[in-house]
């Protein structure tokens, strides 16, 4: 048996550092929101030759709309604009055609009106709230004891904070967008976090049933038993999602990255956050009862 709980302070430190950096990033850098949430137009043009920086600047100057942004990657031009209609799009396309003197193919043209983006914000928020309530309701049912439920909830909040924080860093440094898919990844992470905690707590419950030793001993025993499974499980998910993050389709790259962070954190938090918390809360209630 390995005494995993001996290093509780170290786990706490690791979590606090990551969460602090993440929160700092959220409050200073914020997010890049997708047009789902802000409204506007997204254009992706494919042209037949590479674009140089000078041409990019000319495009930026020609479009000259407030809040517009031009990105160039090889033979692809990405434009983010305030909402335009299909006639204005044709005008922009013709302008770019002249600047790059090449055929321009519309690979993507997405427009989200302000009423739609308001609705998306509203519905995703209610989905997140309902999901959270549903998960909490299920947890009170699954964990009969308050201490178990509470530590699982705290671990879930921990995973939530880590994901929103690190995603803000991804947003700032790599241009990941806060979109509906990210909200989806967030909810999946929350469910996965509980999923994983249940597996570990299930084991602790099993040992507590047959042994009268203190909870910390049983918890350590359970952690030793489930550690291989936790690591292996993380590894398989990492093995599945890393290729998707690195070489998968561009539109789901950051979605895969968010799922990756979420699932790995979810597996990490069960033994290293939820379980120490459970032991701590258990001690606290025992002291009170005494």
């Amino acid at each position, binding site marked *: 048996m390995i005494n995993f709980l001996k290093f509780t302070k170290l786990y706490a430190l690791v979590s606090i550092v990551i969460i602090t950096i993440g929160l700092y990033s959220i409050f200073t850098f914020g997010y890049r929101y997708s047009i789902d949430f802000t409204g506007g137009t997204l254009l992706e043009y494919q042209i037949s030759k590479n674009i140089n920086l000078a041409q990019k600047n000319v495009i930026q100057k020609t479009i000259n709309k407030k809040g517009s942004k031009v990105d160039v990657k090889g033979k692809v031009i990405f434009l983010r604009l305030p909402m335009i209609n299909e006639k204005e799009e044709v005008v922009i396309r013709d302008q770019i055609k002249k600047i790059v003197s090449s055929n321009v*193919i519309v690979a993507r043209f997405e427009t989200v*009106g302000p009423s739609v983006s308001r609705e998306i914000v509203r519905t995703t928020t209610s989905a997140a709230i*309902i999901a959270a309530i549903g998960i909490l309701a*299920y947890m009170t049912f699954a964990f009969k004891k308050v201490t178990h439920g509470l530590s699982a909830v705290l671990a879930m909040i921990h995973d939530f904070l880590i994901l929103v924080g690190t995603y803000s860093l991804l947003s700032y440094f790599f241009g990941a967008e806060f979109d*509906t898919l990210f909200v989806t990844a967030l*909810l999946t992470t929350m469910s996965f976090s509980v999923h994983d905690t*249940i597996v570990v707590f299930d084991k602790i419950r099993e040992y507590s049933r047959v042994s009268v030793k203190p909870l910390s001993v049983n918890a350590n025993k359970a952690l030793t038993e489930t550690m291989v499974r936790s690591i292996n*499980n993380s590894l398989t*998910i990492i093995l599945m999602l890393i290729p998707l993050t690195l070489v998968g389709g561009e539109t789901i790259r950051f979605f895969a990255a968010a799922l990756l962070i979420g699932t790995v954190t979810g597996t990490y938090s069960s033994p290293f956050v939820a379980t120490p918390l459970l032991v701590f809360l258990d001690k606290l209630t025992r002291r009170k009862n005494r």
Partner: protein
Amino acid sequence: MKKIKFSVVIFIISLLLVIWIDLPESHPVLHPPVINFKLFGRTVKKEFKTKMGLDLKGGAHLVFLADTKSLKSSDRDQALEGARNIIERRINFFGVAEPEVKTIKTGPDYKISVDLPGVTDVASAIELIGATAKLDFRILGTDSAKIATDTPIFLQLKNNTKLTGSDIKKSVVEFDPNTGKPVVALEFNSRGGKLFERITEGNVGKPLGIFLDNMPLTWPTVQQKITGGRAVITGEFSLDDAKKLSIAINSGALPISISLVEQRNIGPSLGAEQIEKSVFAGMIGLLGVFLFMILYYGRLGIIASATLVIYGLISYALFKIIPIVLTLPGIAGFILSIGMAVDSNILIFERIKEEIRRGQDRDTAIRLGFGRAIDAIKDANITTLLVSFILFNPLNWSFLPQFGLVKGFALTLAIGVATSLFTGVVITKKLLLAFYKEKKKTKI
């Protein structure tokens, strides 16, 4: 010689059936089955096709907001339905394969969403859809007496009257008090009533055509001069036909103005590239998992990999059977569910190893380990199913998201988890009991 068990036969037959459904539909010989037979006079037809979403196939997704403020709330549903039908007709005119036109109610807003797979000329599609529906009445041309009588009547209706959709107050389905058959009643406004009176007066015994967007809806024969601004179209309608006609007339009469509030167009090449990349990524991931499982668990790992392959085959077959519209996030959900499916196997294997360490023989260890692991697996997967349910929003509750991308992810994840419960538990157990037995101690 061992006796082959009945359950093994069933297992192999089901697996072959699943593989048959999974075959690519384009191959001339090795293609999935097409069910097409008659049962008690009803045709049962089912093809197993991979349905791809617009983000993969390319095409346009358009959402129009209907301006219903000027309408009474009781008329809104019908007006929206009328507009939807008109749009559908116009799109069919445009020649799009498998278009989808849906009405959506979100909070106080009434919307119409239009999916046009493969359409690249979005600007003209939008123009066509957005045009206001035009209803008008036509009478026989002056030269029609000379035309051969075998020309269809509606082609002879050439002369426009000044009567149009804006002269119609409304149209409803009624029942003829004498015959009990459904009829379509028209009610005109005062200008329309007078015009209609004049038209019917001059055309008794002749057909009067009602045209919607230049397409003939119906051409009843005028029985007598009609005064009072009310008319009834009788005919051999079924109730459904009468309703359709009434809605069509109304949509000309109540042109709700619609405005484009959301559009997402994806070029066809972009989607193909994304599929290729994502499937490639999934394959690499899968190989990595196989390698890891086999290196770490040895023989158990081979069984787990076999289960995973079966799992993938069953899931894909389910996608085709249901059928599920596959989107890029959907593929991601599927890939994630593979990762989670392995988890059930790992849980089971670790439990079995534990039992073996406690000194049980393999057969007992497998049975005990399964019993213990299943509880945890079931409990753990419920939350995932719960969240997928909320994200999928099967009842289209307007307070929850209804976008295709999120739905695609939730659905494949849920199906993946449900399937993995089945394969991870039932099939792994069968395979384990069949291939992971104690080596027979015959030699001493």
